[in-house]
């Protein structure tokens, strides 16, 4: 299981971050691992944190009664899983399933939100890193909705 502090410092999501902030983040972090098939999170459950993937792949899924779930996106090493912890009411908006065995870092949201309230620099740093993630994923969903590979008039 990865050491949280060194893993945080090396993870692409926190590239170039102030080492003092890494120290703070590490106080809210711990290493995690999940076998293939296990759920890291379930839709509607409290979003108690987020994950930095070190290895393995997860699928973000929406389940449908009586039908196969839909895979919205897959994420793998170097990526961040979980944005619901940022916005109230802090609930996961989809299921997160380990497609392959996962090694990573879990960051506790309550701990991080508390530290961010008392340390605006930390909160601002997190906002600067999560806001582009929101935008990227919104654009990706728009492209998926466009169904660009559908029929053309040619």
């Amino acid at each position, binding site marked *: 299981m990865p050491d949280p502090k060194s893993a945080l410092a090396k993870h692409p999501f926190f590239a170039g971050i102030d080492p003092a902030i890494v120290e703070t983040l590490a106080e809210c972090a711990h290493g995690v691992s999940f076998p293939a098939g296990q759920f890291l999170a379930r839709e509607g459950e409290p979003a108690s944190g987020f994950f930095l993937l070190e290895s393995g*792949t997860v699928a973000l899924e929406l389940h449908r009664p009586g039908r196969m779930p839909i895979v919205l996106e*897959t994420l793998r090493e170097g990526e961040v899983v979980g944005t619901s912890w940022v916005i109230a009411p802090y609930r996961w908006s989809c299921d997160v399933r380990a497609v392959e065995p996962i090694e990573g870092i879990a960051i506790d949201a309550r701990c991080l939100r508390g530290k961010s309230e008392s340390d605006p620099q930390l909160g601002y740093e997190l906002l600067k890193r999560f806001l582009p993630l929101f935008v*990227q994923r919104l654009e990706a969903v728009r492209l998926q909705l466009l169904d660009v590979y559908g029929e053309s008039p040619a």
Partner: protein
Amino acid sequence: MRAADPFVPSLFRVERVSRETADTITLALSPTQGTPPAFLPGQFFMLYAFGIGEIPVSVSGLSGEGPLLHTIRAVGPVSQALCQLEAGDVLGARGPYGSPWPLAQAAGSDLLLIAGGLGLAPIRSALLPALAERERYGRIALLCGARSPEGLPFGPEIGRWRSQPDLQVEVTVDHASPAWRGSVGVVPSRIPYARFAPERATAFVCGPEVMMRFTALALLGAGVAAERIFLSLERNMKCAFAVCGRCQMGPTFVCRDGPVFPYSRIARLLSLREI
């Protein structure tokens, strides 16, 4: 091979038909007289289904190695007619037309080949010569996107490419069930997975225009220079030699000045909904 009247096609015979997906086939074509015409990767031919009409179709194979290969998806009257052809049938073809992928210009750089859907056909025409002269390039990465796993053309060949140690292959689909073991996500979001040095990379992109616009922006964000990003456009090409104006895009004609353009030249035009 050009007839005296540039609108008159030459006759080609279907040598074989390969099924790629449920609605997509590859035709292998040989002229009824003479040898297959030479072409450059990225160029296109106008294929004529007799009595129905013509459409532009990029070449998907190598020049000088047997029949012309054209990969076609049945989406309109002409393409549906072409997809119903069988070995031995005859069709019309004229070409080649348009600007090629700038493979010579890309020599010495990392090569990023990015395809969406049937865009893999013209991208294949660049990948094959690049692999044939592998030493001319740095790292080569192929990133393929499709609507679903079933919509991915050249499936068996992609499997063979995956086993090549000097070629990185990433496949992603927009929609999949949990049975799909591969990547799910749109093409631009997968660019960070490709291994390349942005300051020495050249990117060739082909796919639906919306996908290419967002992919180009993602490449710029990754540090690839606009003049080293090349897009292959598909507009409403009819004459194929800049006479009819159907494919005009601002001051350019896609059939004559393209279909392959540097992004630096067309970025502004792509953002204009009026054209």
